[in-house]
């Protein structure tokens, strides 16, 4: 289970880094989104993977750490808002610069 999740996070991050290094705004936005997925998953598993265990402290009972879930929720909200913003900005750049290259010039 841990190995699978680790591989998933690794693949997501690698794809995200690759895409965000591309020259057009659309792949860059996709890359940023993939990276934020990867980091959300990463934060989530930092509370350790447990199945069927309550996130409540009881006497002599194991409990799942609820804090990473709260962190992930915050991170998701923020990255969601930022993605929306960067999409709008990319559209505006397309309109103002006349193309969708991140430097605004085709011959780079």
């Amino acid at each position, binding site marked *: 289970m841990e190995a699978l999740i680790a591989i998933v996070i690794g693949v997501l991050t690698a794809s995200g880094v690759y895409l965000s290094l591309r020259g057009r705004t659309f792949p860059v936005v996709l890359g940023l989104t993939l990276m*934020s997925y*990867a980091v959300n998953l990463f*934060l989530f598993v*930092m509370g350790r993977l447990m199945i069927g265990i309550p996130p409540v402290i009881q006497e002599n009972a194991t409990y799942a750490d609820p804090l990473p879930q709260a*962190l992930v929720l915050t991170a998701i909200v923020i990255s969601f*808002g*930022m993605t929306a*913003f960067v999409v709008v*900005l990319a559209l505006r750049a397309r309109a103002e610069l006349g193309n969708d290259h991140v430097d605004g010039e085709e011959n780079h």
Partner: protein
Amino acid sequence: MNHLVIAPLLLPLLAGIALLLLRGSATPMRQAVSLLATFTLVVIAFQLLLQVADGSVLVYRLGDWSAPFGIVLVADRLSAIMVLLTAVLSASVILYALRGADHDARFFHVLFQMQLFGINGAFLTGDLFNLFVFFEVLLIASYGLLLYGGGADRTRAGLHYVVLNLVGSTLFLFAVGTLYGVLGTLNMADITQRLAKISEEDLGVVRAAGLLLFAVFALKGALAPLHLWLPGAYGYTSAPVAAMFAIMTKVGAYAILRAHSLMFGPESGPVAGLLDPWLLPLALITVVAGTIGVMASKRLSQQAAYLVVVSAGTLLAAFGMGGAEAFAAGLYYLLHSTLAAAAVFLLADVISKARGNALDRLIPGPELPRGQLLAGVFLVIALAVSGMPPLSGFVGKWLILQASIGEPGMPWVFAILLVTSLLVIMTLARTGTMLFFKIEEGATAGSPVRVLDLGAPLALVLIGIGMVVYAGPVYEFGQAAAEQLLRSEAYISAVLQAATGGPQP
């Protein structure tokens, strides 16, 4: 519990919300609210500074949840002086913005107050995840402010700035997640304590997380080689926004100093001094890279942006040397360089308006109306920013050089800071000659300079002069703040005392 600690956050937040509700009202109304909020912030910040001046660490537990479980705000000398600096800078900037930049911009003041909320939050928080949240708050406000006015150059610079910072935020979350996974806490004081007891097998992971955190702060603080976004973003945005952004690189520098002195400071055992091998060399490289940029700039606002890079490098060099004296010198230089950089941006805008079609490009232009006045102000600001006596830049650099005596990096610090200062003053002299004395026949000047436009830059210069006159007390305060930073056990026990003492009214 002292509610003054949370006031610098609540005030801009509430003012921002009020301004959002007032967005349809007349411009003077919004200006009045924003102005009132900003000047009240100065008073509050000063009050806060007086309260922590005796060395006490004020801790504010939100919802009265005790520290490592709840979220805390912490005000020590360093936080308080940073909040005061933010307030003073924003007051000057808003006075300038009222002269025209905020007209037809319904959300300018909303974003401005939200940015203040984020910056003050970043300075006051005692929790690593909240630092991330406040970074995001100040960043999203800065995205909006940066893009105000539009234009192809500004949009392109804005796109780069936003994408880079989103990557930075992702790295920040990776670092925070790793630290939480290993240590099980996000409270900075608690992290420091647990780092001291870290087991051998976790050491590598924690060091990686710490250096990742450093990379993120270095990106915000414009440390080479992560400074390349800054000239574009600062050089193409509107003047009041660029002036306000002068504090934003300092947020990164503050975070580095906090991490350097607390989480990776003397109290943290095996990871103590994690940043030592990196900070000073990278900072000196930043100074050199920034100076080359200053010399190569083709526009005055771009030159101002590279001057911000130089100052970021200089003050991080001071922080990188370590020790109370160097921290104190760095703090003095930080106060000076923020105000001076803002003054350059504002003056560049005044000059740009007066030069008609030549704008602030460094080419021969029209003869300026009130040229002698402008040239005089430029001379004073250039002297301050390049570190020539008798202004505050000289005192700051002098203190840094003095602190470096006896340090292993001393020859490098002396050589690089002195040579780059010379190059900067020569370049600024060339810039001044080009702007004021190289007249192109037939070029038409822009709108005549309104003397009141010079009010805000002059106010910043006057504060700088005040910092020379009262250099003694300011430096002593910096030294007290530095000693407080170096004795981090007081900070840790103040924050965590709540955990054992239980909730107190």
